[in-house]
C-alpha cells in the first residue's frame, strides 16, 4: 500500500518508476523510486535483498552528468511493529555538472538512508531527505539557486527519527533547513541562509519523545540569516533566537533548540560582522531585539514553560 501511494505521488509527465520489495515472515522492506532525468545524466543503482536472519535490503546508487533531474525515492519497512518511511528527493535544474551518490540499509523496523550531491552552476538544486516513524518525523533540506552546492544528508529511523546534513554552497542564494516533529506535534526548526555569498552549515534534528535541533553555520555574503526555533502548539510554548545581517554580512552561528511536553527552549551564540546586525530572541509573550553595526559577539536565549517565559540577548 505504501509503495502504490508513493508511486502515484511521484508520477510526473515523463518518468520511469522502479519498485523493489522483499518479504519474509510477514515483515517487509522496499524501495519505490521515480526518475525523470535528462539523457545527459547517468544513473546507476544496485540493491540486494537478503533473507537470512530476517529480511533486509542494502542499496547503493549514484548519478553524474549535467542538465535536469527530478528524482524521488521512498524507502520503507513494515510488519515488525515499528513501520517507517524515508523519502529522498533531488530536483536539479540546468546543472552544468552534477554528481551524487547514496546508500540505504533497510530492515522492517529501522532504516538508514544517506546521500551526497554536488551541483555546479545550477539554476536550482533542491535536495531533501525526510523520515517518519510512529508519528515522529525529521528531515533536512538543502537548496541553492544560481549557485554551486555540495550537500551530504542522512536520515535514520529506529526508536526515534534523526536527520542531519552538511552543506557548502556559494552563489546568489542558498539555504539549509531542518525540521523535527514529535508524535505530540511539537516541532523544532533550524535554518541558515545566504544571499550573494557562501554558506557552510552543519545541522541535525531528532524527533522521539521530544524534538531537538542544532546547527553550526558560517555565512559570508551580502545577506545572512540563521535561526533556531522550538514550538509546542498544544501548550503555546515558543522559543526563537536568530541572527540577521544585511550588508557585508558575515557570521559564525552556533545554535540549538529543544521542545517537549514541559518547555520550549532556544539558544545561540554568534560572532557577527555587517552593516546591519539585527538579532531577535523571542518567547511566547515577549520579544527582545538589538540593532547593531560593525562587529559583535553575542549570545541569546529564549524559553517558555508552564511557570516562566523569558528571552535575553547579551553582548559578549
Amino acid at each position, binding site marked *: 500500500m505504501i509503495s502504490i501511494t508513493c508511486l502515484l505521488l511521484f508520477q510526473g509527465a515523463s518518468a520511469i518508476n522502479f519498485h523493489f*520489495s522483499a518479504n519474509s515472515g510477514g515483515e517487509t522492506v522496499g524501495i519505490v523510486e521515480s526518475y525523470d532525468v535528462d*539523457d545527459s545524466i547517468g*544513473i*546507476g543503482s544496485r540493491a*540486494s535483498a537478503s533473507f537470512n536472519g530476517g529480511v533486509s535490503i542494502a542499496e547503493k546508487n549514484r548519478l553524474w*552528468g549535467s542538465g535536469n533531474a527530478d528524482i524521488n525515492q521512498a524507502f520503507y519497512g513494515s510488519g515488525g511493529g515499528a513501520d517507517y518511511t524515508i523519502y529522498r528527493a533531488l530536483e536539479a535544474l540546468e546543472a552544468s555538472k552534477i554528481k551524487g551518490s547514496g546508500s540505504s540499509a533497510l530492515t522492517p523496523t529501522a532504516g538508514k538512508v544517506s546521500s551526497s550531491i554536488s551541483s555546479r552552476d545550477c539554476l536550482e538544486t533542491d535536495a531533501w531527505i525526510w523520515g517518519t516513524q510512529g508519528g515522529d518525523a525529521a528531515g533536512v533540506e538543502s537548496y541553492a539557486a544560481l549557485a554551486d552546492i555540495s550537500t551530504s544528508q542522512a536520515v535514520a529511523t529506529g526508536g526515534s527519527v534523526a536527520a542531519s546534513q552538511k552543506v557548502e554552497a556559494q552563489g546568489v542564494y542558498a539555504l539549509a533547513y531542518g525540521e523535527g516533529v514529535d508524535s505530540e506535534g511539537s516541532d523544532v526548526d533550524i535554518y541558515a541562509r545566504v544571499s550573494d555569498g557562501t554558506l557552510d552549515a552543519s545541522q541535525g534534528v531528532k524527533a522521539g519523545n521530544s524534538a531537538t535541533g542544532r546547527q553550526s553555520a558560517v555565512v559570508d555574503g551580502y545577506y545572512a540569516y540563521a535561526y533556531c526555533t522550538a514550538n509546542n502548539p498544544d501548550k503555546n510554548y515558543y522559543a526563537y533566537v536568530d541572527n540577521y545581517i544585511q550588508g557585508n554580512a558575515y557570521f559564525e552561528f552556533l545554535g540549538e533548540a529543544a521542545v517537549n511536553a514541559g518547555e520550549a527552549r532556544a539558544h545561540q551564540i554568534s560572532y557577527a560582522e555587517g552593516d546591519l546586525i539585527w538579532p531577535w530572541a523571542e518567547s511566547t509573550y515577549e520579544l527582545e531585539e538589538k540593532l547593531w553595526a560593525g562587529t559583535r559577539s553575542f549570545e541569546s536565549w529564549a524559553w517558555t514553560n508552564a511557570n516562566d517565559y523569558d528571552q535575553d540577548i547579551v553582548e559578549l
Partner: protein
Amino acid sequence: MDAYRTLTTALLLAGLISSASAASYTFGVYNVTDGSSFWISRQSANMTLDLSGSVEGEIAPIAVTPAGRVLSPYYSASSDLDANDVRLRERTAALEGTYSSEEAIYLRAWANSAVNRTYFKPAGSGVWTITLEENWPVRLNASRTVDYAGKMINDRDSAGNNGDSVGASFLYNTELSKERNVAMRLERLNATVIATNDTIISADVFATRSTVYDIDSHSTGIADLRYRQVDSRNNIINIGEERYSGTYDITRRVKMELVETNVTKKTDWLNCCIEGCSGLDPCDTMPWGGAGVFGCAC
C-alpha cells in the same frame, strides 16, 4: 463374506513437509508516459518434502449401515505442488475396478540467497538497463505407477517449470497401466528490462531450468499427451499435442532446458540497437572476446 468389498489400501507415508520458511519479493518497472510496465513477484521457501506411498485394492461398493445403505464405489486423488513456479499437478478418479499405484515425491527448495536488482543509464543515453538476479533453486522429482482395470478411470498429470509444461491425460480408460517419472530443476532466474523514460522496450525473463518427463503406458480409452516450451519473453517456441483413442502402448521422453548464458554483446550499449542492429557491421554484433577487446580486428 460381505458381498461388497471395500478398497483395501496399504499406504506408506514416509515423510511430509519438514520445514518451510517463506520468502518473497516483487520487482517492477513502470513508465508514466505510456503506462507500460513489467512486474515480477516470486515466492519460495527453504522447504523439503519427501513422500512415498503405495495403494493396492479393489474399488467396490460397501455397505455402511445395518439397513444396507451402500456407498458408491470410487477412488479419487489429487495433488498440487508448487515451489517457485515449479509445479506438479495430479488428478485421478476411478470407478469400480482393481487399482494399484505407487508414488514417490522428492522436493527441495531454497530461498536463502540474496535477490539482487540493478539499473543503469549511461550519461548521454536515454536507455535504462534494469536487471534482476535470483538464486532460489528447486529440485522436484516425482515418480508414479498406476495399474487399473475396471469400469473407467480418468488420470491426468501436468508438470510445469516456469512457463514450460508437459503432461498426459488418460480419459475414459477401462485399462490403464503407466509408469511416469518427472525430474525438474530450477537453478536461478535472471530478468533484464530495457526501457526509456517513456516506454519499456523489452523484457526478458530467463529462468534457468530443465524438465524431464518420462512415461510408459498401456491404455484403453483416450490418451492425450502434450508439451509446451516458452522462451525468455514467454513466447511459445515448442508445442505438441497428441490424442490417441483406442488401445495403445506409448513410450515418451521429453526433456526441456533453458539456460541463461549472459553473453554480453558489443551492441548492448548502443542506443541504435535497441530496435534492431540490421545496419551494423557484423563485426559489431559478435560477442565480446579478448581479441575483440584488445585487438584491432574482429
